[in-house]
């Protein structure tokens, strides 16, 4: 048998005792399972102390080589959020003009759209593509009236996979926000702002920084958080005794 990683004595006096099988979710798990993306907010601004609390949680996220390759920007200026929204909508409208083959008389665009989809398979996935059309038509908001927007930049020189580190830091902040009774939504539709020299200057989008995503933050309207059904996923499991199984 393999040697235990921890001494028996240490196992008897743990700082946190792991729960018995079938026990209820603890507070952290409950926040994780209840977190839903929030798309309508009250006008009330998030006070600075709460926001500082949330940003602090991002600061203590794990990162490769402790390089902390993120930069957070806080935008609470409503005029600026409105302007950013306007410019994102502009880009979406332009995209729709060139890519929406569902419009009458534009069926011939389908081939081009699919080439673009294959070249940019993530940005042009059918779901964001559909969202782009909806934003262009004004049917879907960008930051959904959130009073605070946190754009997140990545330092591209960092070790390993800096984009992953940025995601981890962001999720730390999102979970903290939900545990404090606030609502959030990840909004990566901020990325088109990179195409505007105005925003490159204002948000400091110069090498090594790159705009990755943003988080909308505010007090939720109603109670958006709660459990949902979600597909299980196959997990390949190589057991201790050399067995293999797939669990869901």
């Amino acid at each position, binding site marked *: 048998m393999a040697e235990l990683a921890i001494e028996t004595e240490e196992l008897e006096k743990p700082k946190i005792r792991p729960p018995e099988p079938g*026990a209820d979710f603890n507070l952290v798990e409950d926040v994780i399972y209840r977190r*839903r*993306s*929030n798309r309508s907010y009250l006008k009330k601004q998030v006070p600075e102390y709460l926001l500082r609390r949330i940003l602090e949680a991002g600061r203590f996220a794990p990162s490769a080589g402790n390089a902390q390759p993120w930069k957070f920007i806080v935008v609470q200026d409503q005029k600026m959020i409105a302007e950013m929204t306007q410019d994102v909508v502009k880009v979406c409208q332009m995209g729709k003009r060139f890519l929406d083959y569902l419009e009458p008389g534009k069926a011939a665009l389908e081939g081009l759209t699919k080439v673009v989809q294959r070249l940019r398979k993530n940005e042009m*996935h059918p779901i964001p593509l559909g969202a782009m059309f909806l934003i262009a038509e004004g049917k879907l908001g960008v930051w959904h009236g959130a009073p605070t927007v946190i754009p997140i930049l990545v330092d591209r020189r960092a070790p390993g996979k800096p984009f992953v580190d940025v995601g981890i830091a962001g999720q730390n902040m999102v979970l903290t926000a939900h545990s404090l009774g606030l609502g959030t939504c990840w909004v990566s539709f901020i990325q088109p702002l990179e195409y505007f020299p105005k925003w490159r200057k204002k948000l400091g989008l110069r090498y090594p920084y790159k705009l990755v995503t943003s988080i909308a933050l505010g007090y939720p309207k*109603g109670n958006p958080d709660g*459990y949902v059904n*979600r597909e299980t996923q196959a997990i390949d499991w190589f057991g201790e005794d050399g067995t293999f199984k797939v669990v869901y």
Partner: protein
Amino acid sequence: MPEFLTWKDRRKVESFRRIGEDLILGQVTIELDQCTGCGSCVNACPAASLEVKDKKAKMTEVFPMCFSCGNCTAICPENAITITRFIEFKRFYRYLDRGEPQRPRKF
């Protein structure tokens, strides 16, 4: 057995013109008796797939790009909404290695 894409799948991107064949959209069912028409689900939907008509919520007829996120089921104060179909891509974007949907489970 792990799932992979076939070469045939990889050659073809799902078309919005072939909904129901290449691309099966998500679907939610609304218990109309319980629905008060408050519209919170309409605001919560990331795909603008819901609308309130005659004081009842319903899915839009034109292109409801529902991807079964469940935000509407979570926000509904009357618990009137359930997901009845999960989104499915049949070609290049096919989701791999998925099982039956479930709530958060306790082990």
